[in-house]
C-alpha cells in the first residue's frame, strides 16, 4: 500500500500512517545512522513508512547537517553511542569539494578524482571499527553544465568528474566488504534531474530533492536495507497465457501463440522471457502457475521461438486448481516462504485473489500490457542483491536438482534408504576467509531453519572467525545430483567450560537430510578438543522459525529453562557423546 502511494499523499498522511503501522506485531528493530550532506528528514520519513510496511521499525540517528565527515572521522562519540546496524552516508553532488578547476589538465584529472575519493575513503575507514554496514550514496549528475556537451569531455567538466568519481566509488565498494553503494545517480536519472531537483527546497531547507525525488530515494534505500536483512524475494511465479506468450494456448494451439520476432507483440513477449531468463541466470528461481492442462502448457515452451524452456523452471503447476492453492504448493515444494514469491499475471482477477488469499506474496500491478511488465517488476526492486556470490549463479541449477531428488524419493521403501541413495558427502570446518561472504549472506537471509534469528554483518563475522573464544563452523553438502554449496552455519561462544550456541542456521534446500546431526557431531568434536563439557542451545521463537521448535530436543538436548518464546536447552558432554550422523559419508573435518 505504501509502496504504491504517491509522495503527496504520503507526506500528508505520514504521521497517521506511521502510528498505524507501528501497531503491527513483531517489528524488527534496525538502527540506522544518517551522516547528512543535506537535509534527509523527508527521505527518512518515507523510508520509515516503507520499512514498517515490511515489518522493520527503523530507529534513526542524524548527524548535524553537513557534518557527515566530522562525525565519521573526528568526533565519532554520537555514532559510537548510537550503535548503528547501518550507516547511510547521505551525500550528493552538492557535497563534492574538489571540483576540478578550469585549468585542470588531462594529466591532473586522475589525481583530482583520487583526492576527492580519498576524503570519502577516510570516512569509510573511520566507520570500520563500528561493525556496521556502511551505505554510501554515489553522485547524481549536476544539472548545470557550464560547458554544455563539452562538460562530459573536458578535464574541467563536472559531468566528466562525477562519472569518474562514481567509477572510483564502485572500485572501492567492490574491494571493501562492509561498503555498499546506494546508486543515487541511477535514482535521480530515472526520476529525471529536472523533476528530481528543486532549487527553492535547496535554498530554503537544504533538501536536494522534490518530494517525488525523496520518495524514489527512499524506495531504493529501503530495498538495500531489506537486502541487508535477507528480505529479498527468491522466486518469480509466472502465469502463461498473455503473460509469457501472447494468446491462449489451449484455444489457439501451441503453434499459434505469439512469441518470436515476427510482430511487435511477439517481440514484447520475447523480451519479457529474456528478462525472466536473465533473472534466473543470477539466481532467481522461476516457477509456472497457470490454468491450463499441463500437457498443453508444456508445449508452449517447445515452440521454436520460446526463450524459456521447461528446464528453466524449478516448479511447474499447470492445472485447474485455484491459483492460490498452486502457489502454496510451489512455496512448499521449493521449501521457501510465501514471502519469497513474486507473482506475475496479466489477469487482474487472478492478481486480486492472490493478494487477498496470500498477502505475503508480492503481486505487482503489472497491468495487461506485456511491454510494461519489466519496468513494473524493476520498480518493485524485489530481487535486490548486495553482491553476487558463486552460489547465486548456481542456485537455479541446485533447485532443479532438488526436484530430481524429490522424484527419486518416491521409489524407495523408506526414507533411510532414500538418504543412503543420495550418496551424500559433506565438509564441516571452522570459518575460512573464502567463505565469509557466503556465510554472512546465508545468516542474513535464513528465516526458517534459524534457531535465534541473530543477524551478523560481515565485519562481525570476520571478527568471530579470528577470535579464539568462538567455535564457528560452516557445512557444505554434496550429493549425487550436485553440489548444494555452503548450507549451514553454527556460531558457538565459549564461556569457561560451556559453549553457548548463539546461532545455528541451515538452508531449507537441504532439510531432512540429516545434515544437522553431522553439524552437531562436528561441533561436539571441536568442543571436546577445547575442554568444553556442556553445550547450551537457544530457541528464540519468531513468526517464521516454527520449523525448528523441536530441533534441540530431537538432537538429545534437555530443556533447561526459559519461557516458550525463548527456550534454553542443555547437552551434557561429561558422560561422553555418541555421534548421530548416519547417512552422510566421507566427510572431511579439518
Amino acid at each position: 500500500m505504501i509502496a504504491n502511494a504517491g509522495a503527496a499523499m504520503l507526506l500528508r498522511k505520514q504521521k497517521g500512517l506511521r502510528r498505524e503501522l507501528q501497531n503491527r506485531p513483531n517489528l524488527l528493530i534496525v538502527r540506522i545512522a544518517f551522516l547528512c550532506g543535506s537535509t534527509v528528514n523527508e527521505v527518512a520519513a518515507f523510508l520509515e513508512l516503507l520499512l514498517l510496511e515490511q515489518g522493520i521499525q527503523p530507529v534513526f540517528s542524524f548527524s548535524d547537517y553537513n557534518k557527515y565527515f566530522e562525525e565519521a572521522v573526528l568526533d565519532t562519540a554520537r555514532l559510537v553511542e548510537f550503535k548503528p546496524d547501518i550507516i547511510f552516508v547521505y551525500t550528493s553532488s552538492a557535497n563534492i569539494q574538489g571540483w576540478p578547476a578550469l585549468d585542470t589538465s588531462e594529466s591532473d584529472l586522475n589525481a583530482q578524482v583520487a583526492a576527492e575519493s580519498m576524503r570519502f575513503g577516510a570516512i569509510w575507514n573511520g566507520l570500520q571499527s563500528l561493525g556496521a554496514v556502511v551505505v554510501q550514496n554515489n553522485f547524481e549528475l549536476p544539472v548545470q553544465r557550464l560547458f554544455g556537451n563539452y562538460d562530459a569531455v573536458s578535464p574541467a567538466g563536472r559531468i566528466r568528474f562525477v562519472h569518474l568519481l562514481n567509477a572510483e566509488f564502485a572500485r572501492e565498494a567492490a574491494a571493501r566488504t562492509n561498503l555498499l553503494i546506494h546508486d543515487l545517480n541511477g535514482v535521480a536519472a530515472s526520476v529525471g534531474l529536472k523533476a528530481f531537483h528543486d532549487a527553492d527546497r535547496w535554498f530554503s531547507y537544504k533538501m536536494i530533492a522534490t518530494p517525488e525525488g525523496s520518495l524514489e530515494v527512499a524506495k531504493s534505500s529501503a530495498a538495500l536495507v531489506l537486502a541487508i536483512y535477507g528480505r529479498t524475494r527468491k522466486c518469480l511465479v509466472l502465469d502463461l497465457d498473455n503473460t509469457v506468450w501472447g494468446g491462449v494456448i489451449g484455444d489457439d494451439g501451441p503453434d499459434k501463440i505469439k512469441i518470436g520476432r515476427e510482430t511487435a507483440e511477439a517481440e514484447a513477449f520475447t523480451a519479457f522471457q529474456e528478462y525472466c531468463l536473465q533473472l534466473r541466470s543470477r539466481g532467481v528461481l522461476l516457477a509456472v502457475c497457470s490454468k491450463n492442462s499441463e500437457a498443453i502448457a508444456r508445449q508452449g515452451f517447445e515452440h521454436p521461438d520460446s526463450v524459456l524452456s521447461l528446464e528453466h523452471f524449478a516448479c511447474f503447476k499447470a492445472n485447474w486448481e485455484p491459483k492460490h492453492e498452486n502457489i502454496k504448493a510451489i512455496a512448499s515444494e521449493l521449501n521457501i516462504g510465501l514471502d519469497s514469491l513474486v507473482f506475475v499475471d496479466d489477469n487482474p482477477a487472478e492478481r486480486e485473489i492472490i493478494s487477498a488469499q496470500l498477502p505475503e506474496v508480492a503481486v505487482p500491478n503489472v497491468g495487461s500490457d506485456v511491454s510494461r511488465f519489466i519496468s513494473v517488476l524493476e520498480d518493485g526492486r524485489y530481487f535486490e542483491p548486495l553482491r553476487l556470490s558463486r552460489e547465486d549463479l548456481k542456485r537455479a541449477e541446485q533447485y532443479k536438482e532438488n526436484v530430481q531428488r524429490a522424484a527419486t524419493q518416491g521409489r524407495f521403501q523408506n526414507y533411510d534408504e532414500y538418504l543412503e541413495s543420495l550418496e551424500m558427502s559433506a565438509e564441516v570446518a571452522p570459518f575460512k576467509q573464502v567463505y565469509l561472504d557466503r556465510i554472512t549472506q546465508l545468516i542474513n537471509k535464513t528465516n526458517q531453519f534459524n534457531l535465534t534469528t541473530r543477524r551478523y554483518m560481515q565485519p562481525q563475522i570476520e571478527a568471530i572467525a579470528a577470535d579464539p573464544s568462538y567455535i564457528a563452523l560452516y557445512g557444505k553438502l554434496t550429493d549425487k545430483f550436485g553440489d548444494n554449496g555452503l548450507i549451514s552455519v553454527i556460531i558457538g561462544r565459549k564461556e569457561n567450560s560451556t559453549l553457548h550456541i548463539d546461532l545455528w542456521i541451515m538452508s531449507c534446500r537441504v532439510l531432512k537430510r540429516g545434515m544437522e546431526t553431522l553439524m552437531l557431531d562436528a561441533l561436539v568434536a571441536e568442543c571436546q578438543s577445547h575442554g568444553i563439557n556442556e553445550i547450551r542451545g537457544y530457541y528464540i521463537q519468531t513468526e517464521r522459525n516454527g520449523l525448528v521448535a523441536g530441533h534441540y530436543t530431537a538432537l538429545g538436548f534437555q530443556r533447561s529453562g526459559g519461557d516458550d518464546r525463548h527456550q534454553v536447552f542443555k547437552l551434557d558432554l561429561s558422560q561422553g557423546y555418541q555421534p548421530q550422523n548416519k547417512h552422510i559419508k566421507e566427510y572431511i573435518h579439518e
Partner: protein
Amino acid sequence: MSDILAELQPIFRDVLDDPALQITRQSSAATVANWDSLAHINLVSAIEQEFRIRFSLSELAGLKNVGDMIDLMEQKLAIK
C-alpha cells in the same frame, strides 16, 4: 473566499496528525503543537500540491500566521 480556511483544515489535521485540531487565521507554528520545521515543509508541500500553486522563497519568508497564508493563496488563486 474564506472557505480556504475550511479547505486547509483537513490538510493541517493530516500533516500534524491531530484529528481535533482547529486552526484559525491567527494560528502559527508558535501556537500549534507539532508544527515543527519538518511539519512546516510538509504543510507547504501539501498545500502547493493540493491547490496547484507554488510559493516563492520571498513569499514564504513573509508569512507570520495562517491568515497571511490564506491572503497569499487568495491572490494566487485569483490570478489562476
